[in-house]
């Protein structure tokens, strides 16, 4: 989008209030969605809940291809489509809702840095586990990723995606890592997050911010998704303040919802992964 068009769209976004029929698109919850996409989707849902903005979750098999950037989740608000947490936060800010307005400059810098840390380490570790660990790839990823499609399309699509992800891993230097090293990195990341959280209810004391939403999305998904082994969730369980943090956010923002609640979503994926 050119600069002028983007400015125009932002103006437009600012003038329209949040509609009632805003929708969030992700892959099929029961059979198709993978760990990393589930985490990202949950993070966006948590963020919108924290802003008190209503959103419906719609599951489509081709959500990835509908997305403007190729990544899920994306939201459809009015006549605009925005994908990924970063741009969604900015879009929501243009509409006048923000969680981080009360932070000073130094805190904003730290928040951005910690969000990068989660993206860099947790998300990459999830991708590594899903696409580069042979056992997980064979038993979980391949069957799930192509499940809505008939043979041989399902195999072709999942091999194509695997090739793409492995190329990226090589570019960033993660291809040479072993699973133990990846789990070590996850542990360091959780350690850093745990230190930063301390005994506070949220990362920036009283009010939740987008960092809390992002951390919740990833940690909750890791804790409640059953994989081949429990090593990943064990790393997170070592830090009691992180598990308490997840429980607190779940209770505050997702309890009492019949559908699309985080717990039900995670439990269903857990059930279906127990093959």
């Amino acid at each position, binding site marked *: 989008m*050119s*600069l002028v068009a*983007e400015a125009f769209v932002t103006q437009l976004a600012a003038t329209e209030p949040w509609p009632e029929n805003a929708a969030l698109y992700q892959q099929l919850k029961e059979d198709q969605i993978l760990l990393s996409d589930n985490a990202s989707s949950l993070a966006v849902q948590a963020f919108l809940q924290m802003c008190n903005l209503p959103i419906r979750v719609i599951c489509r098999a081709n959500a990835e291809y509908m997305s403007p950037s190729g990544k899920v989740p994306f939201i459809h608000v009015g006549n605009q489509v925005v994908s990924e947490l970063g741009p969604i936060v900015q879009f929501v800010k243009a509409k006048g809702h923000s969680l981080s307005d009360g932070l000073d*400059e*130094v805190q*904003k*810098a*730290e928040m*951005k*840095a*910690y969000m*990068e*840390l989660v*993206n*860099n*380490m947790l998300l*990459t570790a999830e991708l590594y586990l899903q696409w580069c660990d042979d056992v997980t790839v064979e038993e979980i990823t391949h069957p799930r990723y192509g499940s809505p499609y008939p043979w041989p399309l399902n195999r072709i699509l999942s091999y194509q995606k695997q090739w793409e992800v492995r*190329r*990226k891993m*090589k*570019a*960033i*230097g*993660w291809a040479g*890592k072993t699973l133990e*090293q990846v789990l070590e*990195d996850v542990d*360091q*990341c959780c*350690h*850093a*997050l745990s*230190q*930063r959280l*301390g005994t506070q209810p949220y990362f920036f004391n009283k009010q939740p911010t987008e960092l809390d939403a992002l951390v919740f999305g990833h940690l909750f998904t890791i804790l409640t998704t059953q994989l081949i082994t429990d090593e990943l969730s064990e790393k997170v369980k070592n830090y009691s303040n992180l598990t308490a943090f997840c429980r607190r956010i779940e209770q505050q923002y997702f309890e009492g919802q019949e559908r699309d609640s985080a717990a039900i979503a995670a439990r269903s994926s857990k059930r279906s992964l127990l093959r």
Partner: protein
Amino acid sequence: MGFGLSHGIKLVFSLQKYNADYDLSATQSADTLAFVSLLEEKLLPVLIHTFWVDAKNYVEHTRKWYAETIPFPLNFFLPNAMHKRHLQRLQLIWGDDYMEDEEKLEKELYREARECLTLLSQRLGSQKFFFGDSPASLDALVFSRLAPLLKAKLPNGKLQQHLKSLQNLCNYCTSILSLYFPWDGGDPLSAAPRAAGTESTEAEEDPHKRRKQLLSVLVGLAAMLGYAFLSGIVSIQRGSVGPAGRQPIAMEEEEEEEEE
């Protein structure tokens, strides 16, 4: 996604053995990890683009810079190989056609890099180092990213201008330079491609450079002469015009053939 994030973490932990991070509190260590991620994710790819992929900068500055200090004969192809490798990496991370989409590049990527610099500036504030009065590994990493950007004479220096507008970061870089790299005070550029410590050995390498050049020319000459002798193009005959005579005759024959 972090280029050398694990590298950065190893840096943090190995330095702990050497006490650079010994005095940091747990929160500060966590902050180090977070800021390392921020740097590697937002700033480093754009720095690589600025130095290695941006056409003007690469041709007029970086390639010359490296070619002057890399020993002969590697200086002919090593900078180009590095350029290709960096371009490939950036294409994998940002998408294959990111070079064509000028606006996206300028708007999103450079903007995020500028924002990253501003965030670093805000975090540093008016302190001497990031965590108080003594330096830690984060200071080393930030310095290593910022100093080349600050000091290099880039023709296309959008990011550089933004850095120069952040006064506290400039002062921070120059103070670390003067504290820990005092021999570089006058001319930090010549040693910048390698670690600053090797600047003293650069003068010693010059006679080696000459010697290597001379040797390679001699070897080339010897190879040509050897081939000429062995294949019979040139042969030593007693007192005849053999060598000189043969070649013109051969050339005349070729000309006749061509005319036909």
